[in-house]
């Protein structure tokens, strides 16, 4: 009687699934290594963790924001580089770096001994902090670094997702994650959508609904919280959505633990 159901379950158990990426394997290894009482670096994770700290520091100085501390919609909204191409700024690290640098960590020779601040790679990327520091949820981002006018030629990527144009801070408080961002200063945005992404950032819009962690209908909001009891490292982006449900602006990728 239950044979068909058993077969269905067995099929689910045999379904081909892709392997976990080497960068994600290293991410988990870093988490294990950072556990209290487990401070001594697991050799194969240490070098990758050090690289991740550099990424966090780099992103912290590369964010783009206007001097008034408000978000600005990307203008024109649909003709800038997608997150898969580095935004053309004067800094050396950008959202695009998040795509390429972690991949390089998988090629780091195992066995290198490196000391990494516990929690460093997975802490907030609130701008102005220096790799792994945290700030109270109500603290606004600190003063921005400068960016120069775009000089790189436009990419040929599909003009769907604008380049990241502001930063979001994230802080863990117990089982919850608190996301904060500067006040929205544009006129096209109507809502915020917090999306769970990969390190490469949002690639498609509309996004897979399972990736949406929170919709914030109040465009005047500057913070939101979600329940996330597990402390697995996760990447997030905040999307400013217009009345036509298109992306008006998008934040840099931020990582939580």
């Amino acid at each position, binding site marked *: 009687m239950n044979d068909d159901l058993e077969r*269905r*379950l067995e099929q689910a158990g045999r*379904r081909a*699934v892709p392997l976990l990426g080497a960068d994600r394997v290293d991410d988990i290894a870093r988490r294990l290594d950072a556990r209290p009482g487990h401070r001594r670096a697991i050799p194969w994770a240490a070098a990758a963790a050090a690289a991740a700290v550099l990424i966090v520091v780099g992103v912290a100085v590369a964010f783009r924001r206007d001097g008034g501390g408000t978000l600005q919609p990307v203008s024109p909204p649909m003709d800038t580089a997608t997150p898969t191409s580095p935004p053309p700024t004067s800094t050396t690290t950008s959202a695009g770096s998040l795509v390429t640098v972690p991949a390089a960590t998988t090629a780091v020779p195992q066995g290198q001994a490196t000391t990494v601040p516990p929690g460093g790679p997975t802490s907030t990327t609130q701008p102005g902090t220096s790799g792994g520091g945290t700030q109270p949820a109500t603290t606004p981002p600190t003063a921005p670094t400068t960016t120069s006018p775009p000089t790189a030629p436009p990419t040929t990527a599909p003009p769907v997702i604008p380049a990241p144009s502001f930063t979001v801070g994230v802080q863990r408080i117990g089982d919850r994650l608190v996301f904060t961002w500067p006040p929205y200063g544009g006129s096209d945005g109507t809502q915020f959508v917090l999306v769970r992404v990969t390190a490469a950032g949002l690639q498609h819009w509309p996004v897979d609904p399972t990736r949406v962690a929170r919709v914030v209908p109040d465009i005047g909001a500057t913070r939101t919280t979600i329940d996330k009891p597990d402390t*697995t490292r996760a990447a997030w982006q905040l999307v400013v959505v217009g009345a036509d449900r298109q992306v008006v602006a998008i934040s840099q990728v931020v990582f939580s633990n």
Partner: protein
Amino acid sequence: MHDLSEIGERSLVDLARRDRDAFAELYRRNVQAVHAFARRRTGAAADAEDITAVTFERALRSLHRFDPARGSFVAWLYRIATNEIIDQARRRQRRNTPRNQAILRAVVAGEEADPPDAAFTAGTEGDGELLAALNTLNDRYNTVLSLRFIAGLEVADVAAHLGITAGNCAVLTHRALAALRRQLEKGQAS
């Protein structure tokens, strides 16, 4: 100095209780298997990564409780992963309120392409209906079916990890399948 790659599982687990490098070797040997199980069971890539990470964190914390007499190390990891999957499903059900669903439909998918109501609870890969129905079963039924069929463990291994006899495991499996069938029929009827 050990060549960890040549050490058998049981010895490696013993060693891992006091040697981090040995645990790293256990991680390296089993991470893909745990991830594959989690991905098949949840049907979602991001969930599978979370569950894999949490599974090894819990394993590291609870390694002193692993009893090799009750089955293989990977089966123990599957059990931990299953517990986390059950916990995760519960957490999602708590926050999957009608209001959240309505906002999501209005903003994300547009009027012409509403997402299914189970967007936050069901997987997006594989047999989503089956996986969602599994999450509605009680913990014991969910666990026995997940270990037996999704993980593909032998009855004896499942029984050992649940602390029951093989005969009882067979009975439990039969009842769990019946409950799963009822759940699927209920879903189709509604």
